[in-house]
């Protein structure tokens, strides 16, 4: 199973990752602002993530880490 993790404090909520996800499971959460004042990106369906890393590739802030199954992170 793949896991997409967004660094909450580094993300600036630009939403470029949301345009890259082939599964359309990356979205900007509107629940909580980070300390810079941004709503940040999140994976809304971990089970559907295929770990293609397109969201991470698109991220201008290196805020996204992709871990594949058996991950220790």
């Amino acid at each position, binding site marked *: 199973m793949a896991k997409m993790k967004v660094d909450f404090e580094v993300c600036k909520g630009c939403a470029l990752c949301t345009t*890259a996800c082939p599964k359309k499971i990356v979205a900007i959460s509107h629940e909580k602002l980070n300390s810079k004042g*941004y709503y940040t990106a999140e994976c809304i369906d971990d089970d559907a993530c295929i770990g293609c890393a397109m969201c991470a590739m698109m991220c201008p802030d290196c805020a996204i880490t992709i871990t594949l199954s058996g991950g220790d992170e």
Partner: protein
Amino acid sequence: MPEFRKPHALTDVPFHYCPGCTHGIVHRLVAEVIDEMGIEGDTIGICPVGCSVMAYDYFNCDMIEAAHGRAPAVATGVKRGNPDKFVFTYQGDGDLAAIGTAETVHAATRGENITVIFINNTTYGMTGGQMAPTTLPGQVTQTTPYGRNPEVEGYPVRVCEMLATLSGVALAERVTVTDPANIRKAKAAIRKGFEFQKNKQGFSIIEVLSTCPTNWGMSPVEALSWLKENMVPYYPLGVFKEGAVR
């Protein structure tokens, strides 16, 4: 086991760029190439004056901050004194194609063994969005409030096409970073540039069509669309010259 994380050639310092600015993507691609080639300890980067002025805080290799437009001359000095090291410059459109045109053209025509990463986002970002040498006809900027009028302000410069005419150039390629497919191509082009340098085969320039959502007055996602619809037709993607000079 992490499958995708920040490359080692980038420091832990978070980028200061505006949300959605594609500088960050290009920084990462350069760093990934440095990682993959295992050359961080042998690389010296030159940053320009412009939004990426503080790139020296972001790259883990040795870094030099150049005066506005002079990065190719600074890179020449480093490279001539250290011919076995890798030297790259990272420059914006105002830096490379306006104030530093002479340095760019002459480093290229000398076949200086350096790699130039050229960020074309049609505007002076750091100073607040003035007309750049690459601003499109009709494009509104702070200093072309009625749109760039070629009769008054002249025409935008197509840098890759211009440099492709020079004998010293080994690679002149234009790419963009609007989507993962193009990002892969951009990275391949940057890698190619560093490989040319590794084999001492001449000057390489990779022009990256980029966005400036803040100064364009758009959301980052809108800016990507604007780039595709307006910049790509004027600045076609592709290889304009490729082949070892030496």
